[in-house]
């Protein structure tokens, strides 16, 4: 279970100048639930995802973030990954010269090492990779190419989900995974995410659009605006936002 309490955080540029982006955010995502976060541009959605994964320049000022009782802010990014925090990037990075398979296996074994587990055997890894690739309709040749280099936006997103299914994280953050996807790809990616839904896993789905939530059905929907959660509700809240835009909900929250 992810518990965020009164979180305040700033984003710093390279010169160390900071700006407060998260301004008192509280949120609970119990294991087994999928929560969607929606909100206008600049609300702090991506900041939240980087803050939870420990990117440099995203600094908590006050408040707490705990995953299954552990303080995330005391852990390095790779330690959080080993604890099962996975971020599907809005803009996945290109890693020249490193084939997808090599990258994923190196990551998987690094996580296992951190957790004190044995490395995965080559046949076991290959078998799993084939199964996941089949589910996501990823061509075997694609897995031999350097990660994300020369791939389309949709392919990159599909590879994020490939990594997610391979690494089997405990807590998933999807940052605008639907952007750049056509309808077929959206369905495939959603099927992949849904395959990971289980009682032990929590998910935070950041999106602008209801259409992703047609495929990945959320238990709760939160509206993030100006650095805090201003409204929460069931799946119907997303439908209302789709119809009315943010204005109505934001006005109610302000009232």
């Amino acid at each position, binding site marked *: 279970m992810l518990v965020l309490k009164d979180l305040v955080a700033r984003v710093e540029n390279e010169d160390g100048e900071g700006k407060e982006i998260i301004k008192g955010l509280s949120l609970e995502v119990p294991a087994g639930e999928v929560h969607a976060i929606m909100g206008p541009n600049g609300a702090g959605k991506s900041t939240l995802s980087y803050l939870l*994964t*420990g990117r440099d320049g995203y600094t908590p000022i006050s408040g707490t973030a705990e995953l299954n009782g552990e303080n995330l802010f005391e852990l390095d990014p*790779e330690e959080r990954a080993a604890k099962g925090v996975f971020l599907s990037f809005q803009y996945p*990075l290109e*890693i020249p010269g490193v084939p997808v*398979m*090599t990258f994923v296996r190196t990551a998987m074994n*690094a996580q296992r090492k951190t957790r004190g587990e044995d490395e995965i055997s080559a046949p076991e890894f290959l078998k799993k990779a084939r199964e996941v690739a089949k589910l996501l309709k990823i061509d075997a040749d694609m897995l031999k190419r350097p990660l994300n280099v020369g791939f389309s936006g949709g392919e990159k997103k599909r590879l994020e989900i490939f990594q997610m299914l391979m690494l089997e994280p405990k807590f998933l953050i999807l940052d605008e995974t639907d952007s750049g996807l056509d309808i077929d790809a959206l369905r495939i990616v959603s099927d992949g995410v849904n395959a990971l839904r289980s009682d032990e896993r929590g998910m935070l789905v950041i999106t602008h659009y209801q259409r992703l939530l047609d495929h990945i059905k959320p238990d709760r929907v939160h509206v993030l605006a100006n650095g805090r959660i201003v409204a929460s509700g069931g799946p119907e809240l997303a439908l209302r936002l789709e119809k009315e835009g943010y204005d109505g909900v934001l006005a109610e929250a302000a009232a």
Partner: protein
Amino acid sequence: MADDAKVKQGVDEATVAAARALESDKYDAGFETEIEQEFAPKGLSEDTVRFISDKKGEPEWLLEWRLAAYRKWLTMQEPTWAMVDYPTIDYQDAYYYAAPKGEAKYESLDDVPPEILETYKKLGIPLREAEVLLGVEGAAETAAEVRESDSPRIAVDAVFDSVSVATTFQKELKQAGVIFMSISEAVHEHPELVKKYLGSVVPQSDNFFATLNCAVFSDGTFVYIPPGVRCPMELSTYFRMNAKGTGQFERTLIIADKGSYVSYLEGCTAPMRDENQLHAAVVELVALEDAEIKYSTVQNWWPGDAEGKGGVYNFVTKRGDCRERGAKISWTQVETGSAVTWKYPSCILRGDDTVGEFYSIAVTNGKQQADTGTKMIHLGKNTKSRIISKGVSAGKSNQTYRGLVSVGAKAKGSRNFTQCDSLLIGQTCGAHTVPYIENKRADAQLEHEATTTKLSDDQLFYCRQRGLGEEAAVALLVNGFVRDVIQKLPMEFAVEAQKLLEVSLEGSVG
């Protein structure tokens, strides 16, 4: 696909395991074997040259050849054009010959002093490995069997300081007609070949360091592949400097006769020490009609401590001559060591339809300096060359790619492709590219591409989010950057090279 994937994964696994094993001890090769040495008198004079020649029982012509080089050297100036900076070398304050006392040759591995074998063991050189021993005992009788066997086989000519102490696989190579021995032995056993080819690629008067080598070269390797023979195994020599204050002047001569093929591996490590060590080797390759030579190097000499104190000066002249039609010479190098590197493995494309290749990875960290590159001299018609250079700079190091592509007036239809990529890690290192092109043909096709990239924080974070520690992330990204070149290395060297990259870049971030 399955086999391919298996091999690749084998490399990765080995890399990770090896790097882990090395974490506690950054420079494993830094130890010194206690063994009695017999030195040439300190300093350099005609007497030193005579002493060396006498010690090796050389014929008169070779002594004269050395002396001529020495006299030439006295008139030469140390080059200063390279972008490297080091204290003035006192050539009179060094020893020019050191050999283990007693017998200089060994009938079998049992006769080799145990300290020497121990040194090799620490370096992980497979001298005593079962498969090599099998080779010594003649278990594999034919070249065909070797080709069919699963594990890659390497013949090792181990050079301990100056004298070659053990040679394995001799019998098998003999059956194939391959001559693989120390150059001192070759002088006695195959004088006609040595006389014909020695200095025929790198002339005595070539450059300051090469000329010095001609005068005082101690030992090295000689290889001759007869016409039409495909050398049945990878040939390998491990150089290792051991005696304190001993310059190392290796001499390598490889001749591939018509239609033959040989792959030669050179791997180097040196013990840790305080004073700088001079290394001025000469490597000459001769490829005759339709012959192919593949020469691979992994160089891991002591680069000096974090303040840049100590470390090896590596001033090497390597050149290959594609002397006749259809010959091909390919240089692949992974340079991670030395305090100062000055090295330009080159190809003279003399015959028509000849091919020259240069694949290089140079990694500098700490205060290392490297000025390295290649020369492709197109003389024959339809000659082709390809240069792929990958430079990785970290810490406070500085690195220069210096290359020459020259197309002569008769080199009709020549082609060159050059790609120079530099990767910078951190804010305090430097990368420089100095490509020279001389073209006398309107029909030549010359392409040059160069990129400089900085290791990006975004990529690092992406890797860390997936669970890789910071150093593992750097190693992965660097391995990706140099992948094109790593793939050109023989498999067992690729493993070593990846391990080296990782160790060399420790502490380069954060």
